[in-house]
């Protein structure tokens, strides 16, 4: 069977200023419920009612997830690139554009 080329989305697909969806809003609420149990020194300091965009939601989600699962931030113990399936080949990632949220 011939190789099927999978089109990439256009540059305009990315919009970190998109308003948060109900899914992200609830993900934030669930993380906030967990964060409330942290000692004050480990709180994110984020007032979640101020989170309006996907980019802001992702920043908060990253902070709390990093506290719950710090292993998620560690680089792999072996070379992913050498392992063949690199992120740049397989996923929709782009270079930073300098856009501000």
């Amino acid at each position, binding site marked *: 069977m011939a190789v099927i080329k999978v089109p990439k989305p256009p540059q305009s697909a990315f919009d970190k200023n998109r308003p948060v969806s109900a899914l992200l809003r609830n993900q934030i609420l669930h993380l906030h419920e967990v964060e409330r149990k942290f000692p004050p020194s480990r709180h994110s300091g984020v007032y979640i009612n101020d989170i309006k965009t996907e980019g802001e939601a992702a920043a908060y989600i990253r902070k709390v997830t990093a506290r719950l699962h710090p292993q998620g931030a560690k680089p*792999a113990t072996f070379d992913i690139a050498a392992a063949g399936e690199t992120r740049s080949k397989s996923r929709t990632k782009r270079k930073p554009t300098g856009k501000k949220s």
Partner: protein
Amino acid sequence: MPPGLDNLKHIVVLMMENRSFDHMLGSLKAQDPRIDGLTGNESNPDTTGATIKVQPQAEFQSQLDPDPDHHFPAVDLQIFNGDNSDPRVANMQGFVKSYFNQQHDVPHSAKIMYYFTPEKLPVLSTLATEFAVFNGWFSSIPGPTVCNRAFAHYGTSFGQVSMDIFYVLEPYKSIYERMIAANPAHTAKIYYYDQASSTIEIVNLLQHQPNLFATYDQFLADCKAGRLPDYSFVEPNYSDHDGDNGEEVASDQHPDHNVQAGELFIASVYNAIKQNPTLWASTALLIVYDEHGGIHDHVPPPACMPDGFVAQPNDTGTGRAFAFDRLGIRVPAVLVSPWVPKGTVVSGRTFEHASIPATVTKFFLGDYDQRSPREKAADTFLDLLSLPVMRTDGPDFQTD
């Protein structure tokens, strides 16, 4: 035992977001009439009484904005078209009316009937026609994400029909906990995309058992190194955000996220497995969507085994209690394995997300009594790995 099951060592589930069967795969009926998709004559009335037919005009983005309502009351309207009599018949005639309720824009409400053609979805359509597509895989609840994903993890939502936090009730345990507690122990992981996307399973699993989690980078590495767990559940990227090396485009296909980005992600998961020949020969990959996202499907959800919980009228928002005795709306589901006959169309059987822990439990653990009534009643799908000889003709996707 068929050789495909003799060789099976890994089950991988990729759960995407919020698209109905007809919206994504309904057009395949024109290629294969065994597929219970669209004839082109399916319709809903709009709020003026006009007939709105399905149309092959779905776009990758900027069409289903605002996000179509898929909470319990809206889905009830979509299924029953506002009929509140008792008994009532599911007729799937309320999708356009439901979408109209969000903007009061009659032309815009018709877009809920749009569907993709196969050329626009080369990955999902190809996998559906090359391997096994399910005519009858339904979401577990006529409601939103969190409660539906709970069925994939626990075989129940513990009475929840919304996005609210739920808590695990004894004696039920997640499929991951069952696996690692077994004797001999099995391995299981939830792979979330990255820390900024994280997981939907926060309160019960991530909080208390972070050892069950890893990132998508780790999934790719584990595939290449042959270290994939016995059972893997993969979550897509739920948001557009800045990653360590650039922009990360949401790949979950949740409206209004870009559908092509999800196609790339599905191809990435498939490629990661297929590019390791040993893993490819010993893995079954299920690609499934958590719920329909408020988008039209023409098949009425069937009644099902009650779950032992009852959601009260205040929780359902419909004025009616719900005994978890009817499934949610149909979603795309495709089973990929070199042991699945090409062009398999699974008909005359009903699956739901409780079929996932049911299948994993049956294959790896055998008899396991402490499961929900819904999971115990759920059909399993590994019998589809029925070929006597492994195929060597699977498609290859170029994603760079």
